[in-house]
């Protein structure tokens, strides 16, 4: 078997390819803490909505929140198919999750600080104050972990991957994201007809030979 084992890309950790199991293990908070955090965040959202004012972050400072908004839109910008991460409410989602799951607070806050320090060293100003080209220059250095490591920027890469994951969850699980990605389920379907021909053709598979199992007269078949 070892050949199969060897063909493994050893650095790869188990991927959340199925996207069904919550990614974060070992998060610890009591039920009461979670409920309270949830309630605070909800109250804040509601208050902001009622007053038609901007959302007031519960975890991030105003400056941090502004930086986060720029970052998430650089990660998932608007394009011809759908809006941007901020259009999909990603910053609000991340703010909520950090109150809900305090264990990531330090990594996020510290990461934003790392980013500002790096910008300050390079350009003499914080990330949010940088020109677009300066911002992308930094991202070019930390958005690909392997490249980043080679440049000694692994802390930046780690932070960026965390923000990218949170942005992806926040975006693709939003209404905007679900429609964009073409998830067509979560509806009652009177019949199950299997995969359509275009899919079968693309995959090079068919139901031929399986008639013995799936009789055409059966309901749902």
């Amino acid at each position: 078997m070892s050949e199969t084992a060897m063909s493994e890309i050893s650095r790869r950790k188990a991927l959340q390819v199925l996207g069904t199991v919550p990614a974060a293990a070992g998060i610890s908070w009591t039920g009461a803490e979670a409920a309270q955090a949830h309630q605070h965040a909800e109250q804040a959202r509601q208050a902001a909505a009622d007053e038609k004012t901007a959302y007031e972050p519960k975890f991030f400072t105003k400056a941090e929140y502004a930086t986060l908004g720029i970052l998430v839109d650089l990660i998932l910008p608007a394009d011809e198919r759908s809006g941007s991460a901020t259009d999909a409410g990603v910053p609000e989602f991340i703010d909520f999750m950090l109150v809900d799951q305090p264990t990531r607070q330090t990594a996020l806050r510290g990461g934003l600080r790392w980013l500002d320090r790096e910008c300050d060293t390079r350009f003499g100003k914080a990330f949010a104050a940088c020109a677009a080209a300066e911002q992308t220059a930094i991202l070019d250095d930390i958005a690909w972990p392997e490249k980043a490591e080679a440049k000694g920027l692994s802390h930046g890469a780690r932070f960026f991957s965390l923000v990218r994951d949170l942005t992806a969850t926040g975006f693709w699980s939003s209404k905007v994201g679900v429609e964009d990605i073409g998830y067509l389920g979560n509806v009652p379907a009177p019949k199950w007809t299997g995969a359509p021909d275009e899919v079968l053709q693309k995959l090079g598979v068919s139901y031929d030979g399986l008639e013995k199992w799936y009789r055409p007269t059966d309901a749902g078949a």
Partner: protein
Amino acid sequence: MQVIESSKEYDVIIVGSGAGGGMAAYVLTKAGANVALLEAGALWDVAKDGAMFKWSYDSPRRGFGGKEKPFGEFDGCIGGWEMDGEPYTMAPGERWDWFRARMLGGRTNHWGRISLRWGPDDFRRKGIDGLGDDWPITYDDIKPYYDNCDRFIGIFGNNHASETGLHNEPDGIFQPPPKPRGYELLIKDACDKLKIPCVPARMSILTQPLNGRAACHYCGQCGRGCGTHSNFSSPTVLLPPAEKTGKLTVVPHAMAREVLSDDEGRATGVSYVNTTNGQETTLRGKIVVLAASACESARLLLNSTSPRFPKGLANNSGVVGKYLIDSTGMSVSGFIPKLVDLPSVNEDGVGGMHLYTPWWVDNRKLDFPRGYHIEIGGGRRMPGYGFMGGIEEHPGGSGGGYGKALKEEYRRLYGTGVGFALRGEMIPNKDSYCEIDPEVVDQWGIPVLRFHFKWSDHERKQAKHGQETFREIIQTMGGTVTTPWRDHDQDYGLEPGGRIIHESGTIRMGNEPKASVLNKYCQAHEVPNLFVCDGAPFVSQADKNLTWTILAFAWRTSEYIAEQWKKRSI
């Protein structure tokens, strides 16, 4: 403390309302018995309280469940691996993860509905390979009750024994199975090439209406509970007809503390604590049926001590708590380039796999006994919390990035993963058991369980074989394995004990009262009016999930109780 003593004596008291308890309530009320059903959790009505058709964005947590909802925020189960106020302990250096449900219907509200009828060999393994013990009954004894479950509860699948030559995969009475999804056909294709059978799954989900329950509408959300009652859960299938008899009294929030018994060694009732207000109550019954889940039922017996039963009720043999078993579990995932850029289609289907692989290898050609089946997964599921996390490590991706190209990458790679889960047979061993922790109590003062658990090389070798096989399938599909190889020091990827949530074996049955607690009717050797209806009586596991067998045994046991009760012979 004032203890309420009910004046009424029930014909039968059942503890626990899950698969086993629900079935006992159904059969016994139908037979005319007055039944009290004690349930530690709250009432829960899936049609009102379930989360069918909720979207991830309906919640600020986007489906993240945390400790309270380990299977996701919308999962239809109240319970978890850890519950506030209800601890359990482990012997130093050992691990057993214990999943518990606390609600009407227990774990049947969200279980996977994979319903695999066991075969003749599964009851006589010792006779075949000399390991473990044989059951006191044969497949023929239990077959009629499997048939009953197939007909009454409903199950889809097909009879494939004659086609595959797998004689230990008996025929059943099946509704039509749903056609495979695209990626499932691709998996089948690879399995065909490798001569691994891949056949319609067997799941207790209706594809045709049955007994007033609607057919499935293919929303893929069985784990949230089914608002149209199209899949099996105890409160939607077993309890309604029981309630209709007018003979059933459901007592929610009733945490059984002890089974009471008299000097003659007969059970006389159950004492419980009301978890909402702490009130202690004793309920009298002519017959007591335990179905609190295998470990909870063992705990109850061990905590029910008396001069006659100093080691716990019905436990002069000392066997209660011993031979704790779970299924083996191990998973491997892969990325399948062929699935990139597929047209958008609704792949929900039923809430689970449409195809699976039963155990197919002749053990005489292998260096380990017993087998496993393969559960397959994949597809374009509803995006939720954790969606495509770690994309920088994705073999189909560009190693990270941002911007429009990244957005496009998520679109391309969505739904391109497949997963294979091994579920196999563990051989009961002496080192795996539960006992009462001498020091720790739960919030009601009930002493808790302490677990001991060990895998042996029988299970490790099986997991190794599984890892090799799953990699082969993924590679035959032209894919890249994304799960690292796990070596012997990592048990070849075996999950910790308890993790597959198929706990059983702790109150085993047998013909020999010194080596078993229950006789072949799941009746205690030492206490004739005490029965067990969950997974605890199991003498061994099979490579097949256990709940269909819990249901069949609960039906058989309850029928026996009803006969004896009518004859007044217990």
